[in-house]
């Protein structure tokens, strides 16, 4: 597939937002978005880990999995790479910047089980992206996820006080909000599709 990496970047932030059109990373999206600061911290961490793991997994796929014919093991290998990156990152951040570690601390382990991270890697492999495309795709998807979570956190702050039917309060209302946001993001389509 020959999409300009820059175009791919914008597409993955808006029209093909990993969360709003591919439904990935929903669990932490719903549970963390109650609070704007935590959402911001998690968004930052996800963006970073996503970019790093996508690029690393590109190398792993092209230089280890393909040459050795390990295709059937790829899920396990990808998930180990992701878990390892998160673990190392945790230690590095702890050493370099304890204050950042305090903010990100609780969110980092959560990232290992964030399906968006594995999802981006799998999409990258399935669509045969080049190294540069993978870099921009990983970065763009991370930023798209970050944008989606801070938007929702900001909206939820107001919505929690809204008069709504008792049965709809909480997650129900959140889902409707996400649905409307997804519609708004799809409004950007026409720019490009990366399916």
């Amino acid at each position: 597939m020959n999409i300009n990496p820059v175009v791919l970047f914008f597409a993955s932030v808006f029209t093909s937002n990993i969360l709003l059109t591919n439904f990935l990373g929903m669990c932490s999206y719903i549970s963390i978005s109650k609070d704007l600061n935590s959402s911001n911290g998690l968004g930052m961490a996800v963006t970073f880990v996503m970019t790093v793991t996508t690029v690393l997994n590109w190398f792993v796929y092209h230089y280890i999995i393909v040459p050795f014919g390990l295709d059937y093991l790829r899920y396990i290998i990808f998930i180990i790479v992701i878990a390892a990156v998160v673990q190392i990152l945790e230690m590095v951040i702890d050493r370099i910047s304890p204050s950042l570690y305090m903010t990100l601390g609780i969110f980092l382990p959560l990232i290992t089980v964030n399906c968006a991270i594995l999802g981006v890697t799998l999409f990258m492999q399935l669509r045969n992206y080049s190294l540069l495309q993978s870099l921009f795709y990983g970065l763009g998807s991370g930023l798209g996820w970050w944008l989606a979570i801070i938007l929702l956190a900001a909206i939820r702050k107001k919505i929690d006080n809204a008069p709504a039917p008792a049965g709809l309060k909480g997650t129900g209302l959140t889902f409707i909000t996400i649905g409307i946001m997804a519609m708004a993001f799809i409004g950007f389509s026409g720019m490009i599709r990366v399916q």
Partner: protein
Amino acid sequence: MNEFTKISKNNLIKENQILIQVLGICSTLAVTNNLRNTMIMAIGVTLVTGLSNLTVSFLKKYIPRKVRMMVETLIIAFYVIIVDIILRAYLPDVSKALGPYVGLIITNCIIMGRAEAFAQANTPLISLWDGLTAGAGYALVLVIVAFIRELLGFGTIFNIRIMPKSFTPWTIMVMAPSAFFIVALLMWVAKSMSLKAGGKK
């Protein structure tokens, strides 16, 4: 009440993984615009949940606490790979349509959640049952969502035309936002019902 029936009731209705606990919505909603794909995916998730619960329960004494998340992930990945290979061999068109979502069963929070919350502390047989029913509760919701989306989005059920010719398909049902709306409506129903039941007591 027998332990097994109690677990099934809890997992299917009272504590439904999607509607009440809001877990595992990630990987499967994306394929709910086609009922057949959804059912196959849901069966895969149910099997993986059940079998990984069984395995974790068998091995719980031998897994060091510190690395248990990693070991559980590997056990889950093992079963997902089996599902993936079976799909590719017998249902290649479905496997293609599901794309990366089969692999993403690994990161489905329900499976990890059941392994952590139930299989760690219970005997193998009942853990298997718990996993299977938790998966079934999940499948139930997804099938309802897929039914509505396919019927209104394409006018078909299992790819067979149901709606009359004059029916105009609702394009929005094929796209992502509709899945959020339908899940929200189901949550509304589920929560209202549980609130009503709670009020009666």
